[in-house]
């Protein structure tokens, strides 16, 4: 566990130490806040709610998660440090979890940076904190899936832009499957399967302040599956 912590710490510092890291971490809250206060209808509605703020969260997390992870494996492969890591007495799962928790720490930092928005709204009106905390919990779980997917594609390519693009597009597609199910004329069973696979469907359920074990299991299992896939990709690389 100590080794995983050290691997995570290295990832965390490596990201925040670089100017590109600051850009990514600053763009995320700035983008959300400007959409919510400037282009959204918060002041026109005259209601202390963060519904519109969290409705933007899935799309921004689908872009942010892979932006955090895009260079984590691809750069190691390109620079050759991945080979170095493989010659040290570290198990594959420790490497994967080290990367994941490092990325998760950055996600927490990015979400903390958005807390200025609910604090402002609470200062302006009477904010119900239950759904807000539920939505933040949902953001962490949703973000975990984005990070795990991003790590997989980062391990699959040496090009970080390709890793970011493919992961983000895939995540955005899985944010739209529920919408496709309700608009297209398809078999009811397929429609319910599409809705159940929709990432934002599970996120918005948590955003209403409802903690359903099925939503938790959905995010958790998806994260675990992606991290296992990440480990398999690394082990396949060792086979040449």
């Amino acid at each position: 566990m100590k080794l995983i912590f050290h691997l995570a710490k290295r990832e965390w510092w490596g990201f925040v130490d670089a100017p590109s890291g600051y850009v990514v971490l600053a763009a995320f809250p700035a983008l959300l806040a400007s959409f919510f206060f400037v282009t959204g209808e918060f002041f026109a509605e005259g209601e202390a709610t963060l519904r519109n703020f969290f409705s933007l969260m899935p799309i921004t997390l689908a872009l942010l998660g892979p932006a955090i992870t895009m260079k984590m494996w691809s750069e190691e492969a390109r620079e050759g440090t991945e080979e170095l890591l493989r010659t040290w007495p570290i198990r594959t799962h420790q490497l994967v979890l080290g990367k994941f928790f490092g990325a998760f720490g950055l996600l927490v930092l990015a979400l903390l940076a958005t807390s200025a928005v609910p604090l402002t709204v609470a200062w302006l009106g009477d904010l119900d904190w239950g759904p807000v905390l539920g939505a933040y919990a949902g953001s962490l779980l949703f973000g975990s899936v984005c990070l795990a997917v991003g790590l997989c594609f980062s391990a699959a390519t040496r090009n970080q832009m390709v890793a970011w693009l493919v992961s983000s597009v895939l995540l955005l597609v899985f944010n739209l499957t529920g919408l496709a199910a309700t608009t297209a004329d398809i078999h009811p069973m397929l429609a319910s399967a599409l809705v159940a696979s929709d990432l934002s469907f599970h996120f918005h359920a948590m955003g209403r302040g409802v903690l359903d074990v099925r939503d938790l299991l959905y995010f958790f299992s998806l994260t675990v599956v992606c991290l296992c896939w990440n480990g398999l990709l690394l082990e396949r690389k060792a086979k040449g």
Partner: protein
Amino acid sequence: MLPDKLNLAAKVEGLKKSFGDVVALNGVNFQIPQGCVTAILGPNGAGKTTAIRILAGSLLADAGRAEVGGICVADYPLEAKKQIGYLPENNPLWQDMTVEETLAFAWVAQGEVGSKAAQLERVVNQTGLSSVFRRRVRECSKGYRQRVGLAQALVSNPSLLILDEPTNGLDPIQVVEIRQLIRTLGREKTVILTTHVLSEVEVLADRVILLHQGLKNAEGSLQEVTQSNDGNVFRVCISGTSANLKSLAEKSGAIWIESQPTSSPEIAAGLMQIESGDLIAKAASELDFPLLELTPRTGNLEALFYRLQDGGLPS
């Protein structure tokens, strides 16, 4: 249970590895005794890096067995890796970290052997890194970066040091410094190094393993390897031009290898490969070229290497 450790530092048996259609290793066997510097030598594509990557545990073999200190690398990777310090080709490092952070990270990742402060102090003194200890890796010169790579390999005090082309890309002064460092390390550790720099082998290695096209061609002390494979390469020197020398090679049926420097523009020298020096002498006489030197390059690693490139040695 782990197998008993043997006196050998490392051993490979029947090692095979292919990358698609390309056969990198085709059943290689060799042994590395403890306490000596062994050079794995061969032309580009001989399989040197593949062999040591398998030994270091970063690559899995298709068939065969690699052992470090009697421990099978494939069966007990963590135990085997704890005995190895590895410097990969091109010396990959995390450029954004300081030298101190790099070594501290390597110490943790390699299993926290001994006390951190003592181990870091030891490797910093061994590799002469104290002046750049707090500097970021990307701000260090290439020579210092190579030292950081070596320090990283040494931080858990491994018994076996594997260095893949350790002087590659360094300037002549840095090459001398790194060779000196490897020589010092070779007094207390078993060292395996790969190289295609022949002078490096002659300066550093106690033993040589010659690989060519994925097969082992020779193994033993430098003297044993060069004497058992007497090279039929000759240094030929004539009074005339390089063109004359090349026509001499053509006339005698020798394979032209390369021109060599001479003290006068009226003298041409070069290396040629031929079964017998008599054929060169006869051709020189027929062409009326004054032959100034005809020296066999036997017992010489360079000659052996040229023969390898020209079609390999008999196994």
